[in-house]
């Protein structure tokens, strides 16, 4: 006889991806494939200055010499990089002066995603730089931010309007030669966000960008650059959803963060891209390079909730270059069905008295594989470095895998490094207890998982935390065992 909980698995596996719709917006595409001509075309469409094109070409030429990394605990099907369209932007005839002028279909897409545009944003105090495919559609709250000297705009605009800032910082943390995907991104990135907080300014609202992959067969190559100048503070939110497609879609983003002396940046992500169906068909390939550089007394905190994508390859890292700088990484990574995730962080201690903290909570369900990969590196001159790492894994069912690959590379005797790890399962007893109090099994699993992830969710801004909680429950559908 099948256990009741197994029957629930079966029924839950039919759960559909709730963001699986596509919108019919006229899209401006260029031809498939990648060569120097395509890069020139992208640069031209973006009306970029010559130096930008040169940088892209340098990246492209370097990329040609590189190979896809194979060290991750991932089974990546071959990707034909010549079979991808590297640029797609919604067609718009003229620039918009008000929200009413936005394509109604596009507006509906945003509404379906629950993006709080216009008045809703004013109420919730969130400024959204909404990115649909590769070109920014609307940037809001610019004036409020401008009063404080804060720049928050599409990176393509920043390249034209603030070339000196962009040239100074672009590629300073993640060079175009950093890795295969970063090089590809440097060559072809079509848009993304740029954010600059001037000296001593505390950004009065959470800055938020919603990314959304839309056109079929197009890759998304976002480039984000965030600079907090001396003593500045910003909390930045990134949220992602993608409509369902059978074809795998490639996403290779780069996020660079520079935190100058005494500055602080909090970067929060809720990633919910299409994970593929329950047989493992389709889904986003998500190869992301995220890294921040901390100067003296600076602080950088990464918080991520990763529930989407068929394959995730992502290691938000902190380079603690300045003395007394602090890096933090809080992560919940959940995989279900046939999803694969290889994610974690790197904490590079270079300055003196640097501190870092890693809290990673992996959740594996279905037939998924979930790996934590971390590096804590203490350089020879990094006196009194401190690291605390905690890696927990939660298994749901008996067909999934949880793996941890923590690495420590310590060159200084004064360092104190702690590492704790646990692996647990949702127990039958916990489920029975919840059921006996009237909770259905699905609800019970959602509750237990949210409890498990609470320490990380608590780091997210309020509205984001609620969304993340719901996502964890939705993404778990079909996982109870």
């Amino acid at each position, binding site marked *: 006889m099948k256990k009741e*909980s197994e029957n629930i698995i079966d029924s839950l596996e039919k759960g559909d991806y709730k963001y699986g719709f596509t919108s019919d917006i006229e899209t401006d595409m260029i031809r498939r494939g990648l060569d120097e001509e395509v890069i020139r075309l992208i640069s031209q469409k973006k009306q970029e200055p010559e130096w930008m094109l040169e940088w892209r070409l340098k990246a492209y030429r370097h990329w040609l010499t590189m190979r896809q990394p194979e060290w991750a605990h991932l089974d990546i099907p071959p990707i034909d990089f010549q079979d991808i369209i590297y640029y797609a932007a919604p067609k718009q005839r003229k620039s918009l002066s008000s929200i009413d002028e936005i394509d109604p279909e596009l507006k509906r897409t945003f509404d379906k995603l629950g993006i709080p545009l216009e008045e809703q944003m004013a109420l919730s105090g969130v400024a959204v730089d909404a990115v649909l495919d590769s070109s920014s559609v609307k940037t809001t709250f610019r004036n409020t931010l401008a009063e404080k000297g804060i720049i928050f705009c599409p990176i393509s605009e920043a390249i034209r309007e603030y070339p000196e800032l962009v040239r100074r910082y672009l590629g300073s943390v993640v060079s175009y030669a950093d890795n295969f995907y970063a090089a590809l991104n440097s060559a072809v990135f079509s848009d993304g966000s740029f954010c600059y907080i001037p000296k001593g300014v505390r950004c009065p609202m959470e800055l938020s960008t919603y990314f959304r992959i839309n056109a079929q067969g197009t890759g998304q190559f976002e480039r984000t650059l965030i600079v907090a100048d001396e003593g500045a503070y910003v909390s930045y939110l990134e949220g992602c959803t993608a409509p369902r497609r059978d074809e795998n879609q490639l996403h290779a983003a780069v996020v660079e963060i520079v935190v100058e002396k005494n500055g602080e940046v909090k970067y929060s992500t809720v990633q919910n891209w299409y994970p593929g169906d329950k047989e493992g068909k389709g889904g986003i390939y998500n190869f992301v390079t995220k890294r921040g550089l901390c100067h003296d007394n600076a602080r950088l905190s990464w918080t991520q909730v990763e529930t989407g994508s068929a394959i995730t390859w992502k290691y938000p890292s902190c380079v603690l270059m300045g003395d007394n700088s602090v890096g933090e990484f809080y992560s919940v990574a959940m995989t279900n069905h046939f999803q694969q995730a290889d994610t974690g962080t790197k904490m590079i201690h270079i300055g003196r008295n640097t501190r870092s903290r890693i809290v990673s909570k992996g959740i594996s369900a279905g037939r998924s594989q979930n790996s934590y990969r971390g590096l804590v590196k203490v350089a020879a001159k990094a006196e009194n470095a401190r690291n605390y790492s905690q890696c927990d894994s939660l298994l749901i069912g008996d067909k999934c895998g949880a793996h941890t690959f923590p690495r420590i590379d310590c060159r200084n005797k004064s360092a104190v490094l702690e590492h704790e790890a646990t692996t647990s399962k949702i127990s039958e*007893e916990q489920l029975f207890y*919840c059921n006996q109090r009237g*909770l*259905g099994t699905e609800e019970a699993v959602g*509750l237990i998982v949210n*409890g*498990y992830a609470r320490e990380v969710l608590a780091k997210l801004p309020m509205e984001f935390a609620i969304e993340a909680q719901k996502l964890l429950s939705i993404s778990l559908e079909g996982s109870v065992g």
Partner: protein
Amino acid sequence: MDNNMLLSVKNLHASVGDKEILRGINLEVKAGEVHAIMGPNGSGKSTLASVLAGSDKFTVTSGEVAYKGENLLAMPIEERARRGLFLGFQYPVEIPGVSMANFMKLAVNEKRTFEGKEPIGASEFLRMMREKSAIVELDAKLTSRAVNEGFSGGEKKKNEIFQMAMLEPSLAILDETDSGLDIDALRIVATGVTKLHRPDNATVVITHYQRLLDYIVPDVVHVLYHGRIIYSGDKSLALKLEKEGYDWLINEYKD
């Protein structure tokens, strides 16, 4: 059928793996009654409680159970709970990171939804939490902590009765709620259970010790042995068992 009949168990057999643990249980519980189930270790007391609650660790091989006139065995665990069957656990489990308040709010609302009522309002819920935690003198601070996490043995048991008070069950089965309690905690927990007793609900207490029955006075005392109820009597039976043990009954039964 007797309208007051809450639970009617007929010839219930249940096994774990190949091992039969319940071997023909017959039991009737009416509204307003308190039943005590006693018996030596390993006789099947906790199994009976788990089977009635719907635990899938055990397989019911034959027999019938009617709860409020309906087939209990056909209902999923959570439906039994929503219909007012409550199990006080012998070993309450911990759920890290989930606050007691959040847990109870979900549980209360599941029951209300099932009964076609609106979800409970925040202020009403808080008032209810305060009121009900007072019944078992449960420190109000515990309700903001994670479910059973870091609770002492006594606090866990008080917490079970607190949950019972919140959910107002028709039939509460308390599985060795007295085990591991000191004298004061025993008095508080037992008095709490008594306070919750009403003419329209019933309580089945599973216990090893007569001392619990000083507070919770049973209408009927059953002795469970080898998966069967071999003897039932009034409250004086518990006193006799306390004094003389089970041997006299077991010997008689073997004959």
